[in-house]
C-alpha cells in the first residue's frame, strides 16, 4: 500500500514519445490501481463531492462499487446521473469540482474521482455493458439542437423518461466539441466518444446529422410542422473571436476552432484523410485556456516549435492545471505576460513572417477579480513565428436566435434561460450549455442539459395534466 495521503499515481505516455503521436496521453488506472485508489474514499455521510458535481453523481456509492470489485454496479450508479462518464472522467476539471470538495484533500491529495470514473466507464465499455434502454415510449416528441455535451445529456435523460427524442446536428458527426474540439490525445474519438454516443442512441435517441437549425429548418417549423412539443437548444458557442490587430488576415493565421476542427473532426493529421492542415514550423498560440493548450499540443505533434502567448501570468491561466503541466512536459514554450500587437506579413507571399509583442505586468484587479495586465512601455519585441493560432474564446452563433420568433438573447448574444430548468422566453423552448453561458466546460453544459430535461418533463406533464 502506498501513502494514504496521496493518489495512486496514474500511468502516462512518456512526454518525449507522446509529443510525436496522437495516442492518448493518460493510460488510466487498471483494476488493481482503481481498487486501491477506491479504498482512499472514506464515504462521508454528507458527501461534499456530490455537491461539487454539476450532474450530481453519487460518487461515494460508485467508488464503493469499485472498491468491492463490483464494477458493473459502479457503472450503473454513474449511469443514473451521467450519459458520458468516459468523457467526463477525462475532461472534467475535477480539481475545482468533486475533487476540490473531497475531505481527503484537506490533509493530502483528494481521492482521484475523475480517474475512477474513467476506469469504471472504460471497464463497462470493454466488457460490453451499456445503460439499460427504457421499456416503452410515452409518445411525446422532443427536438434537441446540437449533439454536443448538453444536447446528448438532455436527450439521454429525456429518453430514459420515455420521450421520443431526435437530436439535430449541424455537422456531419455527432459529439460537438467532443468531436471537433478536444484532440484525440486527450479524448479518443472512435474508442471513447463514438461509443458513448452509441450508448445515448441505445436509449432510443435518434440523431439526424447535417441539419443546420435556422437554415435547413427553423425551431418554429420543427414545432408547427413536424410535431415537436418542446425543443432544447444546445448549440454551443461556435463563433471564434479575433484580436483585431494588423495582419490578422494573413495566410498562416487561424482560429483555434479552424485548426482543431481540421485536425480532430476532419482528421487532417491522418494520411488517408483529404482535409489539409497547415504544418507550421514555429507556431504561436494566443490565449491561455484549455483550447489554447489543445491547439498548442496539436501543433507540437504536427512537428512545430510552439509558443503559448498569454497576457497574464501563470497563476491566471484559465486552463486546467493538468493541461498546463502536460503541455510543459511536452516542451511547449510559455511566453507569459506578453501580448501580440501586430502580425508581421511577408508582402510578397502574404504569409506570416513574425509577430510583434509587448511585455505586460499585472496591475490592479479588474471586474473578473483577476489582476489586469498592463503594457510595459517600450518593451516591444518580435517573436519569430510562421503560424499564429488565435485561441481567445468563442461567442454564440446567432443562427438560431435570429431565426426563432420570441427567443430573447442578452447583450453578448447568449440565449437567456432559467438556470433551474432551462426555460427560455419562448414557450416550450429550453436552452443550456455554451449557447446560454458563453464558452464554458463540458460538464457545466451537461449539468444544464440535465436541468433542462427535468424542465421539459415538467412542462410536458403540466401541459397534459
Amino acid at each position: 500500500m502506498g501513502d494514504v495521503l496521496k493518489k495512486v499515481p496514474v500511468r502516462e505516455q512518456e512526454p518525449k514519445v507522446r509529443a510525436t503521436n496522437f495516442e492518448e496521453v493518460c493510460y488510466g488506472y487498471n483494476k488493481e490501481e482503481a481498487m486501491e485508489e477506491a479504498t482512499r474514499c472514506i464515504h462521508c455521510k454528507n458527501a461534499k463531492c456530490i455537491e461539487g458535481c454539476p450532474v450530481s453523481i453519487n460518487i461515494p456509492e460508485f467508488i464503493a462499487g469499485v472498491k468491492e470489485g463490483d464494477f458493473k454496479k459502479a457503472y450503473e450508479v454513474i449511469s443514473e446521473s451521467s450519459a458520458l462518464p468516459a468523457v467526463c472522467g477525462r475532461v472534467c476539471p475535477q480539481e475545482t469540482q468533486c475533487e476540490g470538495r473531497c475531505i481527503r484533500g484537506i490533509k493530502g491529495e483528494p481521492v482521484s474521482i475523475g480517474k475512477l470514473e474513467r476506469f469504471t466507464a472504460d471497464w463497462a465499455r470493454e466488457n460490453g455493458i451499456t445503460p439499460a434502454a427504457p421499456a416503452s415510449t410515452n409518445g411525446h416528441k422532443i427536438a434537441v439542437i446540437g449533439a454536443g455535451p448538453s444536447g446528448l445529456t438532455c436527450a439521454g435523460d429525456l429518453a430514459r423518461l420515455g420521450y421520443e427524442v431526435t437530436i439535430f446536428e449541424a455537422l456531419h458527426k455527432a459529439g460537438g466539441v467532443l468531436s471537433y474540439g478536444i484532440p484525440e490525445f486527450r479524448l479518443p474519438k472512435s474508442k471513447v466518444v463514438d461509443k458513448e454516443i452509441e450508448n445515448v442512441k441505445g436509449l432510443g435517441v435518434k440523431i439526424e446529422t447535417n441539419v443546420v437549425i435556422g437554415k435547413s429548418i427553423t425551431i418554429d417549423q420543427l414545432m408547427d410542422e413536424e410535431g415537436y412539443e418542446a425543443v432544447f437548444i444546445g448549440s454551443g458557442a461556435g463563433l471564434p473571436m479575433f484580436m483585431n490587430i494588423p495582419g490578422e488576415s494573413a495566410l498562416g493565421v487561424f482560429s483555434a476552432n479552424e485548426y482543431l476542427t481540421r485536425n480532430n473532426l476532419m482528421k487532417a493529421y491522418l494520411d488517408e484523410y483529404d482535409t489539409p492542415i497547415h504544418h507550421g514550423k514555429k507556431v504561436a498560440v494566443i490565449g491561455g485556456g484549455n483550447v489554447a493548450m489543445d491547439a498548442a499540443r496539436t501543433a507540437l505533434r504536427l512537428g512545430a516549435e510552439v509558443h503559448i502567448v498569454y497576457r497574464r501570468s501563470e497563476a491566471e491561466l484559465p486552463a486546467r492545471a493538468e493541461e498546463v503541466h502536460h503541455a510543459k512536459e511536452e516542451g511547449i514554450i510559455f511566453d507569459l505576460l506578453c501580448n501580440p500587437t501586430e502580425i508581421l506579413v511577408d508582402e510578397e507571399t502574404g504569409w506570416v513572417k513574425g509577430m510583434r509583442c509587448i511585455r505586460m505586468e499585472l496591475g490592479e484587479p479588474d471586474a473578473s477579480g483577476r489582476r489586469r495586465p498592463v503594457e510595459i512601455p517600450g518593451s516591444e519585441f518580435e517573436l519569430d513565428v510562421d503560424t499564429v493560432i488565435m485561441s481567445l474564446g468563442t461567442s454564440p452563433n446567432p443562427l438560431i436566435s435570429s431565426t426563432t420568433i420570441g427567443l430573447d438573447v442578452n447583450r453578448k448574444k447568449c440565449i437567456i434561460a432559467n438556470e433551474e430548468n432551462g426555460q427560455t422566453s419562448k414557450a416550450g423552448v429550453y436552452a443550456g450549455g455554451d449557447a446560454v453561458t458563453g464558452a464554458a466546460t463540458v460538464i457545466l453544459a451537461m449539468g444544464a442539459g440535465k436541468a433542462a430535461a427535468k424542465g421539459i418533463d415538467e412542462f410536458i406533464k403540466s401541459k397534459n395534466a
Partner: protein
Amino acid sequence: MYKILFADKLAANIYRMVVEAPRVAAHCQPGQFIIAKTDEEGERIPLTICDYDREKGTITIVFQPVGASTTEMAKLTTGDAFEDFVGPLGNPSDLIDEPIEELKKKHIVFIAGGVGTAPVYPQVKWLHEHGVEADVIIGAKNKDLVILEDEFKQVCNLYITTDDGSYQRKGMVTVCLQDLIEKEGKKYDHCVAIGPMIMMKFVCKMTKEYNIPTIVSMNPVMVDGTGMCGACRLIVGDEVKFACVDGPEFDGHKVDFDQAMQRSRMYKSEESRALLKEQEGDTHHGGCGNCGGDK
C-alpha cells in the same frame, strides 16, 4: 446518405449532379450554398446551389475537380450517394428580397465565368419566373467549356463570349460588357458577377468606372460553413467578414480580391499533396520532395 438521382458531364472537366436532399430543397433560395462530403475521408466541399426542385426534394450542383475530394466526387455517378450533404448555407441573394415591381424597372446584367456559370442560373431563373428579364454574359475559355447554354436561353437574354473566339463573341467577359454598353446601347444599373476571382476582380474594376453597383459571390476556403472556423474570412470595405454567414454575396466594389486570391492559395501545397496521393495511390511513396510521403 444523399442519393445522386442523375449525373452528367457538362464539359470536359465540369460535372453536374442532381442530389436527393429534401431538407435542403425545402427551404433553399438562389444565392445559397451547400457542403457535400463523399465519404469518411473526404473533405467538406462548399458548392453554390445551381438549381432546386422543392417537390422532388432535389438540389443540383455543378463542380470542377480541383483537389483530392472533388476528384473523388467526379467519380460518383447516377445511383451513388454522398455520405453528407448539408444546407442551405449562407444568405439568399439580396435580389429576392426586393419588391418585384422595383426589379422590373431595373436593368440587370449577370456575368458568369467558367464553372461560376452554374450558380448564376437559379438567380436568373427566379427572376424569369417572377417576370423579370435580365441580360446574361457567359464567358468561357473556348466553345467546349460553355455550359448550360440551353437552360439559360429559356430564361434570359444570353450573350456568350469565348477567350479564343471559338464560339460567338471573342474576348473576356469585360470586353463583352464594354461592347454591350459602348457599342450596343445597353444601360445597366445592377450587375451580378460570379466566376473565378480574377474575373470578378476585373468586372468590378470596370463596373466601378461605369458606376454600376455589383454583387459578387465568394467561394473561399471553408470548413464548417456555419461561422465556426473563420477560415472563409474576407476583407470587405474595412471590415472582416465571414463568407459563410455574412455572405456568400458581397458588394464587389468593396471586396479585397487580391487578399482573397492570396488566401485561396493557403492550402495549395497541402492540397496538391493529397491530390497526388489520390492519383498515384499506393504507388506514391514520396521522393518528389513535395508530399512528405518519404518522411
